[in-house]
Structures are given as structure tokens and as C-alpha cells.
């Protein structure tokens, strides 16, 4: 029975992932901003078979909450086997281009706050010498593109930060797993026209749990995004610039 910390527990991907853990009888510590939503997610996971579910209402984007979140999350079940960082904001690239505040918010939520939490967790995992530190990045972080390079830069930075952590923790028994979902049909992407490349949160969640179980370093979910991003990364700029990607 694993002890699992979920940061951003009310996101669609986090809920779907938590359900898989609940079905296994794991214990979950959930952190999210909205008290009412968090309570209904917790009730759902209890019914679905979680051994224990604890919650903490906190704004993850606010760094001053991080010390308490990590301390409480660690103490609740006396250590952790999995910490999943699953929150983020997509933002609006056009808005970001004219509003420095919006730009700062995207970078702070998706990168700065995430790095702060991961650094605190890494110290505890390192001492424990076991467990998996998991963060949800994005295929958007694989290449800067005009359509969403602010979000992409934050997620790309997160992937590099995770890579560094992986390097640091190599040999300690701690796994550091970067998840790179493609298009996911969630409230965050409400309003986008959906096509065959889109995946459900359940499918992404299954990919996340599989990646953790098999100890992957970087996992594209669904897997076909690995091939797509290889192509996009290798496009020369003179071709890329002719697209609206």
C-alpha cells in the first residue's frame, strides 16, 4: 500500500490518477485550493477504496504555503512513496504578451512554485532513499512555438529542473519521473476543438501510473507524442516559422 501525495488534487488528471491509487488501496494526501471541491474528491477516493485520505486546503502557487504542505504531507503517513505534482495553469499566450502580470503568474505557478516544492520534497526523499518524485510537464515544453511559449518555457524549465534532480538523486533509490502529456481533454482545455490526438484524463492517468511503476525517467502520454515531438524538435526554424504551431 503506497503513500501518495497529490499536489493539485482537483485537476482532472490528478483525480483520474488518484482513483487508480485508491483502487489499489493506497493512502492519499491531497492538496488543492478549493475546499468544497477537495472534500468531494476526497469522499470519492474513500469510497473507491483508498486506505486513508487526508486533505489540506492551500494555494500551491503561493510559496509561503510550501513548508507546511511538505511537512504535513510527509508526516501524515510517516513518509511518502509517490509525490505527484499535478497543478498548473495554461494561461492565454496573447494575454501574456501584453500583460507582464499574466506572464509572471504563468511562470510562477508552472515553474517557480513547482521547483520550490520539488526541492523541499527532494531533500526528504533523499534522506528516505526511496520513492518517486513525479511532475507533470508538457509536450509544450519540448520546443518554443509562437502559440504558447510562455507556458512552454515554464514546463520546459520544469523538465530541465526534474532532469537535474534525477541526476542528483541517481543512486539514492529515489526515482524522478517527468510526465509529458499531449492534448488532454480536461477543463483546462475547455473550448479547444478536439481531434484524434486528444486523450482522456483516464488514459493519461493510466500512463502516469505505468511510468511510475516501471521507473521511467521521461514518459510521453499517450506514447505516440514521443514520435510527434521528435519530429517537431528536429524541424529547422525556417520550416517551423512557416507553421502556426
Amino acid at each position, binding site marked *: 500500500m503506497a503513500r501518495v501525495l497529490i499536489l493539485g488534487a482537483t485537476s*482532472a488528471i490528478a483525480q483520474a490518477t488518484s482513483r487508480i491509487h485508491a483502487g489499489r488501496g493506497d493512502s492519499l494526501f491531497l492538496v488543492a485550493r478549493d475546499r*468544497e*471541491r477537495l472534500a*468531494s*474528491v476526497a*469522499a*470519492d477516493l474513500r*469510497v*473507491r477504496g483508498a486506505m486513508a485520505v487526508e486533505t489540506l486546503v492551500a494555494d500551491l502557487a503561493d510559496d509561503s504555503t510550501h513548508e507546511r504542505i511538505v511537512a504535513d504531507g510527509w508526516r501524515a503517513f510517516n513518509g511518502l512513496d509517490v509525490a505527484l505534482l499535478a497543478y498548473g495553469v495554461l494561461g492565454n499566450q496573447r494575454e501574456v504578451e501584453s500583460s507582464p502580470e499574466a506572464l509572471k503568474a504563468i511562470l510562477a505557478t508552472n515553474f517557480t512554485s513547482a521547483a520550490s516544492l520539488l526541492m523541499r520534497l527532494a531533500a526528504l526523499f533523499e534522506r528516505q532513499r526511496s520513492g518517486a518524485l513525479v511532475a507533470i510537464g508538457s509536450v509544450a515544453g519540448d520546443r518554443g512555438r509562437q502559440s504558447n511559449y510562455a507556458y512552454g518555457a515554464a514546463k520546459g524549465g520544469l523538465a530541465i529542473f526534474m532532469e537535474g534532480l534525477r541526476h542528483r538523486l541517481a543512486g539514492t533509490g529515489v526515482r524522478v519521473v517527468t510526465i509529458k502529456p499531449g492534448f488532454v481533454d480536461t*477543463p483546462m482545455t*475547455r473550448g479547444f476543438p478536439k481531434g484524434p490526438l486528444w486523450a482522456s484524463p483516464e488514459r493519461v492517468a493510466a500512463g502516469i501510473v505505468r511510468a511510475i511503476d516501471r521507473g521511467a525517467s521521461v514518459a510521453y502520454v499517450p506514447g505516440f507524442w514521443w514520435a510527434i515531438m521528435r519530429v517537431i524538435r528536429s524541424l529547422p526554424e525556417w520550416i517551423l516559422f512557416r507553421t502556426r504551431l
Partner: protein
Amino acid sequence: MAAASSWGRYPRVDEDRRLVSWEGDVRAALASRRPLLARGLGRSYGDSCLNEGGTVIELAGMDRFLAFDATHGLLSCEAGASLDDVIAFALPRGWFPAVVPGTRFVTVGGCIANDVHGKNHHRAGTFGRHVRALTLLRSDGTTHECSPMAEPSLFAATVAGLGLTGIVTRATLALRPLRSARMEVESLPFADLDGFFELEAASAESWEHTVAWVDCLHPRMAGRGIFSRARFLERSDGSLGEPWGRGPRTVPCDLPEAALSPFTVKAFNAAYWKLHPRGRRIEAAEKFLFPLDALGHWNRIYGRRGFVQFQCVVPGARARDWIAQLIEAIRTKGDGSFLSVLKTFGELPSPGLLSFPRPGVTFALDFPFRGDRTLALMKELEEIVIDAGGALYPAKDACMSPRAFGASFTRLGEFEPWIDPAFSSSFWRRVHAAPRAA
């Protein structure tokens, strides 16, 4: 506004879709000035889950479980939870929905709004009979906890209420206990409708599930078919925890219209007659209960223009003759149905004012949509059902006339006062003609 259609892909409409994940989202969506309608997974075949020009509140994201009483098998959940999800949860714990329709990719809210039935209707009645309580959110912001005991009239209007009384946000279902996820299934051929009725009479007592496929197209032996009956195994065999297949096979794209010519449909029916297994066997319950779930997007078989379903019930006494008339009408039109299904409904009363199931024989068919030709056939079939004193099933319907709707649902007058004035649907506007102008 975005283009939308339901499982039958006819008709197509433009509507304003709102995906909701939380109760707060639902309340926000209620503020829309357009006519409102809740939608689950859109597995209704016609336009009862469409709302042209209106706002459609999609509840599939509200799929959380609230409580489970493992002693009595009572599951409380949000209305967007699917039966697939309920089964995946309940089956390993030795429980199963008391009533399931032919697909498990439907929401609890949708099952309530259509008061769906299953192959065990003669034993268990409709889905609504096993709903212990539901929470209804109305456009005036009020919340109603309804059950057969509390606000019973609103409960009776909401079960089978086609989503017109407000939004069902939560429900408590009484599940049934199970020891095995496998069924003993027996399939027996019958040569004509008389054969069907004999088998039906002989099976109702000791077989929990019964259903028959019937060949409407054979030139001389129209009315022949295969009768299937099944019951869950009574002994524990460790099968409850086995994961269910997710149906990896999917129809990848629309088939061309020619794929469903009268010739291929006839050939399909002949092959079905030849190849369907006969005799007794043990098989996974999902295979018997949800045969079409094994093939994802099977509606694409009908091509881009989609298809229409026709499902009616005709009363018992002369049921055989009415069904024979329907088959004859279909056969002479040559516009064959892929899968025609016959089943007897039992005597258990349905709880909803607009519930479709009632004592008699129900007959379900589907036809590729071919414009006026199809509409004319549907009209002809509808007339037979009205003459028979039967009813048509709104969840499957895209064609019925206001007259047929009125004839099918005699308690319409009792239902109307409970409609939430902010709610409507394409179906409702179609069948509920404005008060007859003089």
C-alpha cells in the same frame, strides 16, 4: 454554438455545450438565458439529448462517488458517473446495477432521465425502480431531495422525465448482489413468432435475462430468430475481480453508404442466423449484456448520414399480430434492419410518469438514414403502433409525431406541471406541439 448529434447522428443541430465538473459549474450554467438541458454520454439515439439553439450542460465530468453501503449495496454518486464506472467499482465487491441497458457507456443521470430497461425487465422492472433517492437542481436555484417517499410526485416526473424537470446532480442506487461475473447462457432458434412466444413463456420463470434477435428480411421465413436467455452463475468462482475488456476494437471511420445496402443487411441477417452460437454455454456477463460495447463507435457502420432507431412496445393480448404487421411492413419496404430485437416486458410497474416500459412486447430496430424514404417507413410503423395502443421510446426516437407521443404517454397532463420552465430539448419541442391552434 457548436454542431452536435447523438449516437444515431441524425439529426444534427447547433447547440451551446457547457462541460461541467463541479456543482458550482452547474449553478453557473443555469444562468444561461437559452433553454437548458443536461446531457450525459449522449447515447440516446435521436434528439432527446439535443437542444438546438439551447445550452447543453454536460455532466460526464461529475462522476464522483459519494458513499457506498457495502451491507445493503447502496451506492450514492454524482449523476455523471457511468455504469461502466459503477460496474468497475461494484463488481469486485460483489454488487452489480440491478438494471443495465444494452450499453454500459451511459451515465446514471441518463439512465434515470430515460428510465431505461434491460434484458431482465420481467424480473427487475426499470432502472428507476432501483433509484432510492435523487437530487434535483432546478433553474430557480432550489435543490430537491426526491425519492418514492420524499416529494414523490417530483420523483415520478423526474424518472423518465427526459431531463425536463431540472438537473439530476446525484443519485443513490440499490445494487444487487452477485457471486459470479459469468452467466449461463442458452440460445435457441425459433422458426416464427409463435416460436418466440412459446420460448418466452417457458423462460420467464427461471431465466433472469431474456432477449431475442429476429430476422425481418428473410423472404419466406421472416420472423424466425434466435432466443437467448441467461442467468448469473450462483456459485463463487473468483470471476468478480477479473477486469473487463475495454473493447479495443473500434470502427475507425465512417463506412460508405453502400456498405449498408438492402443486400448486405440481408446477408448480415442470414449470416447471423447461421453463425450465432446455439445451445448452452458459460460466458462473461459483459458479453451477454453489452455485446455492442465490444465494438467502439459502431454507429460509424451506418456512414455519415447516420441511422434511426425505432423501438415500440405493443400490449400483450394481440402482441403477436402487431409484431407480425410491423415485420411485414419492414420486409415489403426492403429497408432492412441490422439488428432487430424482441423482448417481453413484465408486469412490474414503471415509476416514471413518462416511463416507456409497460406490459407487452417491445421491438427495437435500426435503419440507415436515407431521408424521406426512411421517414415514410417510420411513419408507417408509428401508425401500426398507435393502432395497437402501444408506445414509442423517446430515448431511441428521432421521428415520432406529436400525435404518437400523446398516444404513447397518457399521463402527459400529470407530467407537464413539473417541467422546469427553463428546460427544453429538441425532442420536446418536436413532439410537444404548441397548443393546437384552432
